[in-house]
């Protein structure tokens, strides 16, 4: 379990580096897919199956389709992957930074911190995360209303921003 978690965490950092090192948007979106998938694995490893499912369905299913659509809008003839020198330089720079951070904290890791310690998991009927998310419909009703309001607001924002075509914008 510790090795799986270690691999997932390293994969997450590598995925964010591949997004941050300024490749073409196609490849950055691919890196983001990698981060989201690995993040699902990390959440599963900590026992959050419902949140992991939410991340997988909503994030990968909804968000990245939109980003693939928009990568087509911003297409360029000669895309830069991670093999280009400018991108490779920043990849190496970020890797050096992460290694510096790891060596700074080396030896300070908590004992057994690789796997979550969860003694109570067998005693509960409902998993902690799905029960907690269900609280949104009872105790967190105000927050639900605020979220609904911000979704309506975003709809109006997007429509207002993108409707300028007839006016020559």
């Amino acid at each position: 379990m510790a090795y799986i978690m270690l691999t997932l965490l390293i994969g997450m950092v590598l995925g964010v580096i591949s997004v941050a090192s300024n490749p073409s948007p196609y490849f950055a979106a691919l890196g983001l897919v990698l981060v989201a998938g690995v993040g699902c694995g990390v959440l599963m490893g900590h026992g959050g199956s419902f949140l992991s499912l939410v991340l997988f369905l909503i994030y990968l299913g909804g968000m990245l389709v939109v980003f693939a659509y928009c990568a087509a809008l911003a297409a360029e003839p000669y895309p830069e992957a991670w093999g280009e020198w400018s991108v490779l330089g920043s990849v190496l720079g970020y890797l050096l930074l992460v290694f510096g951070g790891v060596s700074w904290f080396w030896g300070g890791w908590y004992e057994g911190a690789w796997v979550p310690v969860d003694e109570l998991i067998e005693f509960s009927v409902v998993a902690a995360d799905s029960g907690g998310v269900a609280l949104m419909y009872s105790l967190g009703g105000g927050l639900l209303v605020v979220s609904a309001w911000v979704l309506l607001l975003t709809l109006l924002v997007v429509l207002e921003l993108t409707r300028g075509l007839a006016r020559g914008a």
Partner: protein
Amino acid sequence: MNPFVLSILLLSLGLGTTLTFASSHWLLAWMGLEISTLAIIPLMAQHHHPRAVEATTKYFITQAAAAALILFASTTNAWITGQWDINFNLHAFPASLLTMALALKMGLAPVHFWLPEVLQGLDLTTGLILSTWQKLAPFILMCQIMPVNSSLITFLGIASTLVGGWGGLNQTQLRKILAYSSIAHLGWMVLVMQFNQQLALLALVIYIPMTFSTFMIFKTNSSTTMNTLAASWAKTPALTAITPLVLLSLGGLPPLSGFMPKWMILQELTKQDIPLTASVAALSALFSLYFYLRISYAMTLTISPNNLNATTPWRLQTTSSTLPLAISTTISAMLLPLAPATLALLSP
């Protein structure tokens, strides 16, 4: 813009700031900041010309990064201390991150570069909202996290007053000058925030009517550069006569109400035994005073030559309501005798 959409957007602006004011939990404060950022975006881009869209894009990226940084800092704080409360004492590292993120949101000095460019692309009404109402929520959050990291705060304040004076020196664009003036005033507020929060609040309360009247004066004259101000004596003579009072009040000259916060802040800083900071702040106000004086000179102290037909527009009736402008110019020129009452009103 459709009035229904406009009313929803303005309501959401109010909702966002109110949510941040009312929250004691960092997630809720973050939600309020996000709502007010999202709500002002279509207002900024409402004319759809390239400069407005560019300013909106810059504003969005900056504010989104700052908001994400705020949430990251509070999550780190929760990870270290186990607390989500705003009023709970923060760990030092998340507190510094939060301070920098809020400084980025307000446009304080080392991270201020977005503010003049964004303000330059907007019309004056939206610019007014951006430089007054949108600053309230991060300002209140900054007041609440204040007891930690004093040296960072002092650095932010001093750098803001200096940059706000320095950057406006060579400008001829009024909106950029107003952006730099906003940076300098926020620097004064932040400088005194850790010693006496009532004074910071007082500076904010005085700053808002002064900025309101400046923006409204420029809007009435429909001028965005300094040389179009020269013809304003023919458009609105009374307003042209009052404008130097408002501008010098922004600069902080004694008989005007803008002097009150600067006076109190300098007194508080001397009382706290940091005379060097106080002198640097007081001297950097001279930079700001220089460009306020230059606007006054171009607008009022000289009468630019004009042809005969163009000297009479002041006879025409204006259609816009001038009552808010009258009230705010009166406030920003004559509030100094009420200084004890204002202070008593703001102290808890």
